[in-house]
């Protein structure tokens, strides 16, 4: 995309319309990775099920393969044995990729300040949105997802870098 921004550098209205269009497409169908670790996964499943439907945000489809998903929701506590696995999954995701750290244990290790847990998943992967709660209510998770959507809508073309994209 460096090519696009260099060619369209000063054509303001074209790039902003392109920004909007691309970000609209990204937020409209952001597919999460099927990745639930602990109790927050149950609330994530409840958010995807009938009462608090996530498919109205385009997220009904959980992909099992990291290559096909855009969003990884770290739902649950990350233990030291699981940390390399999470990192490997994050590395395998193709950009643009977003990380939502759901719950207290993923954000800051929650109730458990001890040897067995990674103290917050942002020690291993960079996080975009943190959702607090133990476990967060489905409404809180939806608020977190909408915050992420707003952040995605604010991204610009000429901020994208091709190699080593976030």
């Amino acid at each position, binding site marked *: 995309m460096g090519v696009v921004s260099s060619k369209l550098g000063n054509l303001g209205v074209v790039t902003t319309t392109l920004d909007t269009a691309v970000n609209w497409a990204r937020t409209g169908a952001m597919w999460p990775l099927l990745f639930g670790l602990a109790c927050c996964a149950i609330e994530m499943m409840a958010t995807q099920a009938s009462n608090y439907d996530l498919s109205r945000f385009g997220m009904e489809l959980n992909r099992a393969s990291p290559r096909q998903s855009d969003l990884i929701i770290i739902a649950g506590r990350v233990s*030291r*044995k699981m940390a390399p696995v999470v990192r490997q999954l994050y590395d395998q995701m193709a950009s643009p990729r977003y990380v939502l750290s759901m719950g207290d244990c993923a954000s*800051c*290790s929650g109730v458990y*300040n*001890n*040897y*067995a847990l990674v*103290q917050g998943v*942002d*020690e*291993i*992967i*960079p996080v975009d949105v943190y959702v607090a709660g133990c476990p967060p209510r489905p409404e809180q998770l939806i608020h977190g997802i909408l915050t992420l959507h707003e952040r995605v809508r604010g991204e610009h073309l000429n901020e994208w870098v091709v190699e*080593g994209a*976030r």
Partner: protein
Amino acid sequence: MQIEKALDPVEALKGAHPEIVQDTHFFRDETTIIVAPKDIVTAARYMRDTPGLLYNYLSDISAVDYYPEYNRPGRFGVSYHLYSMLYSRRIRLKVFVQEDEPVVPTLTVLWGAANWLEREIYDMMGIRFEGHPDMRRVLMPDDWNGHPQRRDYPLGYETVMFSFNYDQISKHKPYAKE
């Protein structure tokens, strides 16, 4: 089928194997029989197979660390909880293990359930079970050093981050760059 009358486990064990019963303890309707580590298989087999006792279900194996008080004969205590389906009662067999030689014979010859329970005790407390078919760590990663549940192992507590010490802690925290 004739159901045998329930026997008193302590008396029965003392009658059949008097030399292995070191001590007994009664607390809140629970019976504990303390034996030496080398006799645990004999005692458990007697409990399981004798008509009148028939403690045929291994409920739990737990280990305790008596550091730093050392108010028991041995640093570690391993408790075997048995349950009798027929007579609906529980009993505990307890073994005290020394700190410098933490070895106990395995109970996997009697119950398959003991397999993972003993692996967990090895992982968490460092007590080896001789004769165990698969003595590896089960909960911690394979290359972990130390036995976490021991009372001299640190909790691994990280200072809680508030706004007054945010910068101090952030500097040392390994954030992921990308």
